[in-house]
């Protein structure tokens, strides 16, 4: 075990950290792209986030590593998972490939542009490598979080306060997505009333119907709509769905 005591360990462990972090990032990114099941994709995304956290640790940015895990893994991917699981897009029948003929060339073009961009940035060495900082480096006594606090709350006061405004906008947007209509809509013909109104409706949350297009983005909403009874089903099936919806409460 004495080889571990070598003085080169610190440098070695920094490289090991970098290697493991990069491997996690790449493996996770590949998983997001290649895996079939959306939940597996989201879990790969978590792997990527952990890799990035390790890279932050490698840079001695410990607080950012923690934030990476708390905010990205702990909140944002959880939101993704909620959407994936609760809209039912993880079921097999909802995962039929749509429009592959159009998507593949588009993906190839976008990917080629991204790679070209990356190579171009790498040519302009100081830009992509992050060697040039906008302010002086934050070396010196004190932990990273102290320096971060010092910087945010003095030099970058205005951006910090504007973040509050950004959060306000986000809250208002979130409310707007699920806002109830102030007026009940004109009553549709009685026979189709069930099919139009009920499937997505929460029994204990009156009026707060999911609007798939707003919540899940265009691609998923298309997938959800194909199996949504609102689009296709006959009336009896609709009321079955509603009965199940009640179990959710």
């Amino acid at each position, binding site marked *: 075990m004495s080889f571990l005591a070598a003085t080169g360990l610190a440098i070695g462990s920094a490289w090991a950290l970098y290697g493991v972090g990069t491997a996690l990032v790449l493996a996770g990114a590949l998983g997001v792209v290649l895996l079939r099941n959306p939940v597996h994709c989201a879990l790969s995304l978590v792997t990527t986030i952990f890799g990035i956290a390790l890279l932050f640790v490698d840079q001695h940015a410990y607080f950012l590593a923690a934030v990476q895990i708390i905010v990205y893994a702990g909140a944002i991917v959880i939101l993704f998972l909620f*959407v994936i699981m609760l809209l039912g897009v993880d079921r097999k029948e909802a995962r039929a490939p749509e429009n592959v003929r159009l998507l593949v060339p588009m993906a190839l073009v976008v990917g080629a542009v991204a790679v070209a961009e990356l190579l171009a940035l790498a040519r302009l060495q100081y830009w992509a490598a992050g060697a040039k900082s906008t302010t002086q480096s934050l070396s010196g006594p004190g932990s990273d979080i102290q320096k971060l606090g010092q910087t945010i709350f003095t030099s970058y006061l205005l951006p910090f306060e504007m973040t509050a405004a950004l959060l306000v906008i986000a809250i208002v947007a979130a409310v707007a997505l699920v806002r109830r209509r102030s007026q009940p809509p004109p009553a549709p013909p009685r026979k189709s009333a069930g099919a139009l109104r009920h499937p997505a409706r929460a*029994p*204990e949350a009156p009026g707060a119907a999911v609007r798939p297009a707003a919540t899940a983005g265009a691609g998923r909403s298309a997938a959800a709509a194909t199996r949504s009874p609102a689009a296709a089903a006959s009336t009896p099936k609709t009321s079955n769905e509603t009965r199940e919806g009640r179990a959710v409460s």
Partner: protein
Amino acid sequence: MDQFLPILLMVVLASAFAIGSFIASKMLGPRSHLHAAKVGPYESGIAPRRELAARFPVRFYLVAMIFVIFDIEVVFLYPFAVMFRQLSTFGLVEMASFAAVVFIAFAYLVSEGALDWGPGKRLGSRAGAPVTRSLNATVRRVARPGTPPSARPPVLVEGASTGSGAGARGLDPVRAGASGPHGEEG
């Protein structure tokens, strides 16, 4: 970075313990004799008849979205908390204004009823409210003690069309049929 070494060791040990127990259980446990009733989903002994509804109430997404926002606010508080002694009054005023802005957004959120789950209190006790149970309400509203019989909600007859909820309910093949053992839930 040395300070992270014990944490890394703990992650390794805990994962090794968990995976090791899976292996141990595989070796120690009996061989599986699988049959349909065993591997099927457990629903208290009743064979599952249909899948779960495709979607869940929108409130769950809303909670997750708003949580993201509050999490970001909390994350900003930590550098503040650590540097509070140095920043002193200046930092306090700064953070108070930040909190005030976010609080106003929060008050808006609450006043929109976005965080209200379930039926409101007064809805439950409002006298003379129509029908017992509809597709939109989970509570069965019954008269409070002391309510005169005239003000009591009518008793719902299974399959009859008395109001909005029952109209849709009549379309349900299971419910409209004989009120069997599974006809009534909750």
